[in-house]
């Protein structure tokens, strides 16, 4: 499966570029402390906000901190929240969807009914509520985002499992007397994992956007930590005099959302060619 997937990706240029960009960004985020030219919190108050120059390639902010370094470090938190929230969503969605699909019948319809109901609720409100009550902490941030973002994943997994549970290897495991728990985790879940990982590439940009949205409002990541949402917030506050503080983080963030969305949609199209309605037509 993975080899075929790679062949497909190679044929689609935009998808390939998106993939390379994403990998590049991940590497950059990993080695940010090594390549960033300045300490992220190193202030140079006498310098203040300075326009991009040879010394500070993207300029500095009001406190004289190097914008390039802050963007590098910001990418770490933005990506971290995106990926960890996705991980939380996968964990919940996978378990929920697998249980619902495997047991079927009344349990299934009840569990899916709950998903339908939850789907209609305004999640941003509840995430903000959690952050207000338990404190604006990065852990609560990704847990709460993930805790509300698993619904689509549960649906996808359920559909997959519905198809799998009548397969011979599951039935033979049942005949051999394996308990449901073992069948689910040993036989069924490993088989849906590939699909799950591919679909979850679409969740990452969604969650990164949510993080930026909350940080922009001042309810997400808190300074002095920097995330792209924070940088855009600070940029928007000072853009009257210092346009570069807004434009560079905003451009990078849009580009990243673009790449991740393309990647997710492209991968989904390859996997499930029927459903090509969203981005890449």
């Amino acid at each position, binding site marked *: 499966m993975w080899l075929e997937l790679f062949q497909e990706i190679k044929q689609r240029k935009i998808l390939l570029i998106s993939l390379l960009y994403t990998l590049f960004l991940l590497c950059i985020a990993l080695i940010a402390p090594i390549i960033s030219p300045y300490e992220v919190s190193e202030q140079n108050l006498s310098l203040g906000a300075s326009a991009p120059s040879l010394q500070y390639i993207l300029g500095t902010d009001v406190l004289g901190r190097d914008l390039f370094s802050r963007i590098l470090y910001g990418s770490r938190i933005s990506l971290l929240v995106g990926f960890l929230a996705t991980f939380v969503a996968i964990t919940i969605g996978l378990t929920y969807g697998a249980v619902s699909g495997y047991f079927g019948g009344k349990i299934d319809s009840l569990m899916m009914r709950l998903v*339908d*109901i939850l789907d*209609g*609720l*305004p999640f*941003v*409100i*509840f995430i*903000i*509520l*959690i*952050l*207000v*009550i*338990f404190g604006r902490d990065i852990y609560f941030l990704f847990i709460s985002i993930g805790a509300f973002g698993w619904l689509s994943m549960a649906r996808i997994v359920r559909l997959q499992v519905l198809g799998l549970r009548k397969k011979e290897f599951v039935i033979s495991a049942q005949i051999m007397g394996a308990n449901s728990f073992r069948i689910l985790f040993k036989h069924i879940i490993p088989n849906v994992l590939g699909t799950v990982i591919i679909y979850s590439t679409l969740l990452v940009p969604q969650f990164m*956007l949510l993080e*930026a*949205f909350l940080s*922009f*409002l*001042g*309810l997400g990541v808190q300074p002095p930590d920097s995330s792209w*949402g924070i940088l*855009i*917030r600070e*940029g*928007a506050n000072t*853009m*009257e005099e210092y*346009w570069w503080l*807004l*434009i560079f983080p*905003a451009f990078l*963030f*849009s580009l990243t*959302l*673009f790449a991740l*969305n393309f990647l997710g949609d492209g991968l989904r199209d390859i996997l499930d060619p029927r459903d090509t*309605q*969203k*981005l890449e*037509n």
Partner: protein
Amino acid sequence: MIQLILKRLFTYIPVLLVVVIVTFLMIHAAPGGPFDAERVASPEIIEKLNEAYNLDKPIYIQIYNYLFNAIQGDFGPSFKYPGRTVTELIMSGLPTTIELAIYSILFAIFLGVISGLVASLNPGKILDIVPMSISLLGICIPSIILGPVLVLIFGIWYEVLPVYGWGDNPGDKILPTITLGTAYAAIFARLTRGGMLEVLGQDYIRTARAKGLSEIRIIIVHALRGGILPVISFLGPAIAGLLAGSFVVETIFQINGVGRFYVQAAFNRDYTMILGTSILFTFMTLTFVLISDIVASFLNPTLRDSGGLE
């Protein structure tokens, strides 16, 4: 039809009730009481305050009281703005938020449906590729970026439009509307295009053509009714999203709407205000999802039997 509405209402009310109770309990469990903030008050005063706000009663009585009052439109006093009730605060911002949402959704429908329609009638041609590429941009550029960038370009660099307030200066409604509506215009364009392409290939359109109807009549009367269905069923979630988007847009443009109040209440930990606005937003979201489900099943008979849930 009526059965469907009743069926949906039957789940709608318990859900709303559960949400209110869970929210209430969450806020109740939050560390720190509402009165131990700035000034240190003597225990007697806190006791009196708790008594005045009914906080000394058992929790289920508090919930009951709250629900009973909330149904009558009374969300209690604001903890941070003494002397003002949450209902007063919400009512002062709600018209603005609703107006903003209506303008944005109209902008989104107008722009989105027209460009989606044009694209679907010229598949693969330049009139398809250009609007669809722009709509991709529209989807990937979030309001937290679009808003500030629009302000920077039109308000600061060219100084052609006012960048804050709502209804105070001529033209100050333009940028917030665009900021909030663009992403939905982009989604609507894609939904319309997809829906139209599917419908245009169907037999009843061929029949209409064979009858010799004019192309315009075929598209407007016959095709659009089916082609616009994806847009209609997305309207509910879209309005829900617009309400959440109003947090950002009202903050950027300093508009005194409920969204901005909510963000400020979250900052100030104004618990009664958070509770009231959360319930309001949930209520509005659920209502719009319900309405759009009903309208969609009205337009598409195949949805009626399944209860409009699939």
